[in-house]
């Protein structure tokens, strides 16, 4: 009993057509995914998108309705949680309040019958830089310290996969930033596969090598942070990851490297390689910082009226109402050449074709924009 057989499978984590149905809704819908061994992987999505359910199925805390989970070649779909080479950092840390920090960390080692736990525990305490707190009880620690102990308690077991369920949700902004860097450092040092569930797109982008954006039980898009940001494939991803200006348009022609798209009577160019749709009806997307005010970039949409300006330090964010009455967001760097623009001014807007992306036109312009990023 003190030495349960823990599967020692090694390799990539595969989710194959995983589905979880609860009584009245489908939390995870036919999800397939491969997480390469040793990567820092983020599952990103609004609350209720099924990311935590996915995590709990990997941990063995929920049983999938359908589908398969495997690590390397070993099927762990129905294995008990205590038989999986997987450890979890829980959202509220779930430290054992009756045990000291040392015993909290040693818990997993002792259950597996490791004889000399002191060295391992001391090493991992050193890794999270909290060696001096070994004899304290969890409630004597600050939130950030508890968070690091929760990570230490999981990685001391050298799991094949470490699951992190919104691990930074309870921390304040400054501490969260610090812990993001800290977690990334730990991941690089131990080389374990990290799967990080979060609703915070900034957190996911800061930390992960690969992000899977989830919405309503499905993966909308998967890729590196830069890939997702520069070339979103759906309106949801475009709006959920940062901000996007989406404009309805019709494809005039596709010839050579660029397509010509008509938006509200103005023809602009979009690189064919950045078009996610083959249809004629498209959504044209431009990130706010790629829009230029009073400059002569190739895709020009003429004049608009500034309706709002807010200074946020590194940049100023403008809302500009276009000739077709859509408000576009524009970020202007506050550097030497920053123009002096006030609300009510008339300005011209333009951008480079290379910064344009085009999506399938049959989507809600606001998909993913109205979801609450900070919801828990």
């Amino acid at each position, binding site marked *: 009993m003190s030495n*349960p057989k823990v599967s020692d499978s090694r390799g990539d984590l595969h989710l194959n057509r995983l589905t979880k149905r609860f009584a009245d809704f489908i939390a995870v819908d036919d999800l397939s995914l491969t997480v390469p061994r040793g990567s820092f992987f983020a599952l990103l999505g609004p609350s209720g998108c099924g990311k935590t359910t996915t995590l709990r199925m990997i*941990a063995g805390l929920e049983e999938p309705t359908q589908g398969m989970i495997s690590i390397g070649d070993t099927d762990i779909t129905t294995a008990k949680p205590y038989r999986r080479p997987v450890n979890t950092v829980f959202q509220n840390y779930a*430290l054992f309040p*009756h045990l000291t920090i040392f015993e909290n960390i040693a818990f997993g080692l002792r*259950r597996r019958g490791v004889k000399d736990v002191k060295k391992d525990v001391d090493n991992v305490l050193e890794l999270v830089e909290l060696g001096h707190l070994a004899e304290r009880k969890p409630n004597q620690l600050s939130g950030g310290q508890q968070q690091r102990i929760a990570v230490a308690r*999981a990685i001391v077991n050298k799991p094949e996969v470490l699951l992190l369920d919104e691990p930074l949700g309870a921390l304040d902004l400054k501490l969260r930033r610090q812990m993001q860097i800290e977690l990334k450092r730990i991941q690089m040092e131990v080389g374990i596969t990290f799967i990080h569930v979060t609703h915070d797109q900034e957190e996911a982008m800061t930390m992960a090598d690969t992000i899977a954006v989830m919405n309503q039980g499905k993966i909308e898009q998967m890729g590196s942070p830069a890939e997702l940001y520069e070339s979103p494939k759906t309106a949801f991803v475009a709006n959920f990851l940062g901000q996007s200006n989406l404009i309805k348009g019709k494809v005039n022609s596709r010839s050579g490297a660029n397509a010509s798209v008509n938006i509200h009577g103005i023809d602009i160019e979009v690189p064919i390689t950045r078009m996610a749709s083959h249809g004629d009806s498209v959504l044209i997307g431009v990130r706010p910082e790629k829009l230029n005010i009073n400059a002569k970039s190739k895709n020009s949409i003429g004049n608009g009226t500034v309706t709002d300006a807010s200074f946020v330090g590194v940049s100023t964010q403008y809302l500009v109402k276009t000739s077709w009455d859509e408000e576009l967001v524009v970020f202007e760097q506050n550097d030497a050449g920053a123009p002096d623009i006030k609300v009510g001014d008339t300005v011209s807007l333009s951008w480079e074709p290379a910064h344009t992306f085009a999506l399938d036109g049959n989507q809600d312009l606001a998909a993913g924009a109205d979801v609450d990023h900070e919801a828990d």
Partner: protein
Amino acid sequence: MAFLHATAHASAPAIDNAAKKRSLTPYFLLLPGMVWLIGFFVLPIATLASTSTMTRPDGAAVGTYVQSLRFQNYLDAFSANKDQFFRSFIYAGIATLLALAIAYPLAYMIAFKAGKMRSFLLVLVVAPFFTSFLLRTIAWTQILGDEGPVVSFLKALPFFSNDIRLTSTPFAVVSGLTYNFLPFMTLPLYASLERIDPRTLEAAGDLYANGLTTFRRVTVPLSMPGVVAGTLLTFIPAAGDYVNAYLLGNPNTRMIGNVIDSRFFAIVDYPTAAALSFTLMAAILILVTLYIRKSGTDELV
């Protein structure tokens, strides 16, 4: 500046008064409780203590006692009734253990598995209090009676003789004690189990502990405050109880409560009854102190 000085001076006495009023408020709030405690706890205890060392003058009427500081009363009372003393603690101890064994799974089920039934089950735990304690105890004489279901069932089994009786036995007394104090065990256990974060248990499973190990290493330690509170709330009144032994027992199952009862009301031997009451109180206090020390939960209770 002058203006500031003036206001400072003017307001100083007002602040003083306010501070004085505030410092008296706690005592006013304490007053009802203190009066109650003095009238219904301190004075009776003092009277009882003084009674316990009285003696009856030669030739005085029954029930007439004078103070003579005879501490020998305690030794006499104890040595004459030590069987009942030990019996009380043994019965109360067995009843406490049985109640714990019954209440723990019950409280665990209500706290973790009952779902929407939780409130309803809690009401059921408390429901017996809606009828009289005496009535419920008398009902046990029928449950355990010679023609009752329990005896009939036992008689049907091969390893009991046909003249088996359960009423007026130690078994009946302990059953009655266990039954009567079960809610006092269940409720504190439920309260402490319900406070356990289920994610702590999930974390144990995640850290390679199977169900049994999780229960031993996490659930039980975290429910210790409830175990301690429940066992105290059961053991203390059970040790002093006399109703169960009176209604369900026989002369050989008399507990110390029965002795005190008969000394006070039948024999009218106030000093012995008072001395026994004090001895019982001291014994329980010592046992409880040792128990709390041993279980190491003083910070949790």
